[in-house]
């Protein structure tokens, strides 16, 4: 089942620290041998400052209590550097920790800098040190500290480049702390900057968008309102273009969001075209499912794909999020997806049929007869479906939906009246203008 795993494609677009949750998930699902994942984790940690964690993993990987010498050395080095940075940033940190002092800060950045410089002898060097310190804290895994410092740094920083990376850092920290609401705010702020700022090159801009979309996956699939927002973000032209060119695998998430979200019909049609266009560059069961239902009208194929989709969703770190309810855990998205997918198939199927054998239909929908009949009855009752069940033959009969002749006639002639009035108005206007002249 590892074939549809996107981690290798998503990973490069994430921060090192953001990859951990993915690896955790993979470990849990046991898609790959444990050893591989542990090794990957150590690899990841190598460049960060979370040496203790790396040591633990090393121990569990090789089942020993020894740790390699370089790790020990690195630990010493990290601690020393932490100390140094802490000292460098100390003046500013103490200032910021003093609530009375902080109240003196105003909205005006220039004023603040001036004030800090004059009264506390805190110059640009100290501010820069704060940034470095925050970064270091982040590397060490102290996300909450990093987030705080970065927030304050942004208030003082004048360099826009730096401010941008501080924003990225803040976003990562919030995601890792799972503060979804705050993370969403940060995300929107970042998005604004990316869209508004005249980036050094369009290439850079596209790359930033790609990163943003990857990072946002954490938020959207955890935030309550995320599924609509993911469509809002990804389906924007600029972002969709970026997906199509550089990261077609993100189509999976957009497709899932569309399927789960019922109220997005107009955009959905456009999206089907995109899927069709990009079938050569990316496909997985979810997009193929859509292609089957809406492009090729292959219902048997769609049904097969639906089964595969289930697997894919379970094995995807973002889609397959588990919710513990009492003793057993469920994947809420999976159920929702299946329900909606079934509805999609059924809807399309109904559109082109006059009479459907229920047995066959339920087979296509992966339902048993009883369940299916209830399902259809419900649809009819909620007047989502204009049909009747013929229980003697076991069929559903669609009501023909012929356009009403009278309605058509009225439609044709409705506009005439308005047009005539307009014409007369024009005539009169002209006639009045004439004598005036």
């Amino acid at each position, binding site marked *: 089942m590892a074939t549809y795993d996107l981690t290798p494609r998503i990973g490069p677009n994430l921060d090192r620290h953001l990859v951990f949750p993915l690896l955790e998930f993979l470990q849990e699902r046991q898609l790959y041998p444990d050893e591989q994942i542990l090794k990957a984790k150590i690899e990841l940690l190598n460049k960060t400052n979370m040496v203790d964690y790396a040591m633990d993993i090393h121990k569990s990987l090789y089942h020993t209590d020894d740790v390699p010498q370089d790790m020990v050395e690195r630990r010493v080095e990290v601690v020393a550097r932490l100390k140094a940075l802490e000292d460098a940033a100390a003046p500013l940190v103490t200032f910021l920790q003093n609530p009375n002092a902080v109240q003196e800060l105003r909205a005006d950045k220039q004023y603040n800098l001036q004030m800090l410089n004059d009264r506390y002898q805190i110059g640009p060097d100290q501010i820069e040190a704060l940034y470095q310190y925050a970064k270091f804290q982040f590397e060490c895994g102290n996300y909450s500290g990093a987030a705080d410092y970065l927030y304050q740094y942004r208030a003082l920083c004048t360099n826009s480049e730096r401010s941008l990376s501080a924003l990225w850092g803040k976003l990562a920290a919030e995601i890792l702390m799972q503060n979804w609401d705050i993370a969403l705010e940060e995300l929107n702020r970042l998005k604004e900057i990316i869209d508004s700022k005249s980036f050094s090159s369009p290439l850079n801009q596209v790359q930033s968008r790609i990163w943003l979309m990857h990072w946002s996956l954490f938020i959207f699939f955890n935030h309550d309102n995320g599924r609509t927002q993911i469509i809002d973000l990804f389906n924007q032209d*600029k972002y969709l273009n970026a997906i199509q060119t550089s990261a077609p695998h993100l189509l999976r998430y957009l497709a899932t969001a569309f399927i789960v979200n019922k109220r997005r019909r107009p955009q959905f049609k456009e999206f089907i075209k995109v899927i069709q266009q990009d079938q050569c560059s990316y496909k997985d069961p979810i997009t193929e499912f859509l292609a089957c239902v809406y492009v090729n009208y292959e219902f048997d194929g769609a049904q097969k794909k639906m089964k595969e989709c289930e697997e894919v969703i379970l094995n995807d770190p973002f889609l397959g999020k588990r919710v513990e309810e009492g003793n057993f855990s469920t994947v809420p998205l999976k159920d929702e997806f299946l329900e909606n997918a079934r509805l999609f198939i059924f809807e399309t199927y109904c559109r082109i049929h006059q009479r459907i054998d229920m047995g066959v239909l339920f087979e296509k929908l992966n339902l048993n007869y009883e369940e299916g009949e209830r399902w259809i009855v419900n649809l009819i009752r909620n007047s989502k479906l204009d049909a009747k069940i013929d229980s003697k033959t076991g069929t559903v009969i669609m009501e023909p939906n012929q356009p009403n002749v009278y309605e058509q006639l009225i439609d044709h002639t409705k506009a005439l009246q308005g047009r005539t009035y307009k014409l007369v108005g024009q005539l009169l206007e002209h006639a009045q203008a004439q004598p005036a002249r």
Partner: protein
Amino acid sequence: MASKFWTQGGSDTEEEETDIEDEIENGGAGETTAAAAGSRYLQTNASDSDDSDGQKRVVRSAKDKRFEEMASTVDQMKNAMKINDWVSLQESFDKINKQLEKVMRVTESDRVPNLYIKCLVMLEDFLAEALANKEAKKKMSSSNHKALNAMKQKLKKNNKQYEELINKYRENPESEEEKFEDEDEDEDEDESGSELEDPSQIAAESSDEDDEGEDVDDDDADGAWEKKLSKKEKLMDREFKKDPSEITWDTVNKKFKEVVAARGRKGTGKFEQVEQLTFLTKVAKTPAQKLEILFSVISAQFDVNPGLSGHMPINVWKKCVQNMLVILDILVQYPNIVVDDMVEPDENETQKGADYDGTIRVWGNLVAFLERIDNEFFKSLQCIDPHTREYVERLRDEPLFLVLAQNVQEYLERIGDLKSAAKVALRRVELVYYKPQEVYDAMRQLAVLSEDGEKDGDETKVEETRGTSAFVVTPELVSRKLTFPENSRALMDILVTLIYKSGDERTKARAMLCDIYHHALFDEFSIARDLLLMSHLQDTIQHMDVSTQILFNRAMAQVGLCAFRVGLIAEGHGCLSELYSGGRVKELLAQGVSQSRYHEKTPEQERLERRRQMPYHMHINLELLEAVHLICAMLLEVPNMAANSLDAKRKVISKTFRRLLEVSERQPFTGPPENVRDHVMAATRALCKGDFQKAFDVINSLDVWKLLRNRESVLEMLKAKIKEEALRTYLFTYCSSYDTLGLDQLTKMFDLSDAQIHSIVSKMLVNEELHASWDQPTRCIIFHDVEYSRLQALAFQLTEKLSILAESNERAVEARFGGGGLDLPLRRRDNQEYAAGTSGGGGGRWPDLSYNQGRQGSSGRAAYTGGGRPLALGQASRDRSSQSRGTGGYSGRAGSGMRGYQMDASARMVSLSRGVRG
């Protein structure tokens, strides 16, 4: 009647043309003599002695024949003079000029035969006489008078070249006449008694001598020197008589300046100049000087080329390439020498010797030379008849050029001039991009082969240089070997990446087009399409030069073929339809000159066009292209016609196809198909009836399919498509005759699987092309025939008429006041949208059409009624898939952003034609 008119027109232009040709010939007479000398030079090179009797006899007989021809022409002229017929005189004059050329070629002499001079003198006298006689002039018929005037002009121009000879002849006609006889008898005598100081002749002699000198060993060198000088004292300075070691930089420099200064002057043989300069390279004192002189040699070699339309003689071309390689050798050997064409170097810059430390600047432009060499190669391929062996031989020289280009590029990259390197890389790309893998492999093999062959040649060449004891010996440092990657794609990728990184806009655009072409050639449609869309080339192409536009058209054609091969019919049609819309495919692809019936071209335009032609081996097969275009059109248009059989005008996909169909339907009898068009029309007739088998058989019988590499799979695909469209057509056509239609019956009729038919029919149902629905338990299609009662039908008619009435009222008001203009078009568009929505489901029917429609939309064909909606859709989605995606994606791949490209697909055709027609 028309034909008569046109033939007349044609002959008119022909006349003009010949005039110009004559001018060229006459103007270039000097060069032709030089060229003749060149061939002679070659021959002597090949066989040291050309005195063997047998050979001479053969030559002589041919020579005699030419002379006889000439003499008979002179007789004709005499007759014409007697009756004062200037028209025939003019013809004869043209003829004799042509014959002169032949004679010169045959006799291998550079002297104009006396017979010709005599004839010129005679003509001149007669002309003067005729002009003097005013009364006779008045009596002349108009055509005769015209001819007289023309003759006056021509003769004046022509005689200027031979002024000296004519004067000499006038002085003592007798002796010349005798000499003419002599010459006929024995050429050597003529040579020994060389009172005539025709410079070109001496050039030939000197070149002759030069060769001898080269062939003689070191010991004889001095003797050769003496001998040479005795013959051309005027040309070579006395200084060179001294022992070679005494030659100083100054003397060489002085001589060099002298020779260069003579360039372009009257009476300077171009070939002779090359010879002199070549000699000077051997005596050059410093590498820098040698380099400088070599540059001049190459320039002089370029001068040898007669006129713009002709190409450089092939042997000269080859020498030119060798010289370039030597230049590179020097540059590699002495990295402190810098070639630059921006700064005027110091007078004595080249005096600095090989051991000089600092940089030495030498004037020159490697890229320009290389490009010129490439252009000459291209031109020669244009001129040579592609069906001859000569053409093939010429093609074999391509690796030679590729070696040079590769070396120049490497050198430029090494010195960090990436911009120029990109230009050179583009030249290489343009030689590779159109080659399918097989051809590429063949070229690689050829390169390896010719290497083996060249080894011997190289050795002798080395000896030769040793023999002449050049002062500055340059070892062959630059490899004469081609290093090719296995795969042409790999080569393309390397080169194209370099160009995208550091080329200028035009270079990048061209490289991009070549890249697209190459991808398309290798059946990678989606990559080619993405590149095309992302680069936004179609938006700016009409601002580019014609040759780039042609390249664009070629790329489009190839992309169309590629789309067809991979089974994307609609895309294929989208790419090709535009090419065929004007009926000027040949012109657009530069694969032959097309005669336009409505517009006559001036000779100037025609010449321009001829200069743009693609060499034969680069052609895209036109028959295949036409077949693909028509088949695509058929597959789209036939079901479309069936669907809208009631109002055929509403939605036309391919106008060209419709027109052809009309023509073929008008024919009283339809014979068996002969050409591509007939075949497709026959297939169309079958397809209209839903007879897929017959349609496929007819198309299968086309013999252009053998040109496809993966023929089987393409035909397989085609068959499947034909079946599908046959099914659709059948359903459209006969849906009114059925109440229900069984799935099984359809499977049997169209030889398709249940699932396929179900899928196709479902698609039609969803798009509301067919008013029916499935009845699943019985596996039937149930057609809902929407039948209106009489009252309802009448009511519909009434509403329709009402709306027409309202519209005409509005139009009347509009015409009167001109004020209603604003709302009318608006509303009309609404109507169209409605129509499109109901009739075809708009863009939904062929959902992937968006890309093509986008192109159509941008091409300003919005004039189609009912096209409103799909166009709009297409445009929107094109914008999406290309606009900002383009910049990023393209640059992502290429490594540098190529922004701001905006163009239009069809406008480029227009502008191309504008370019053609001035």
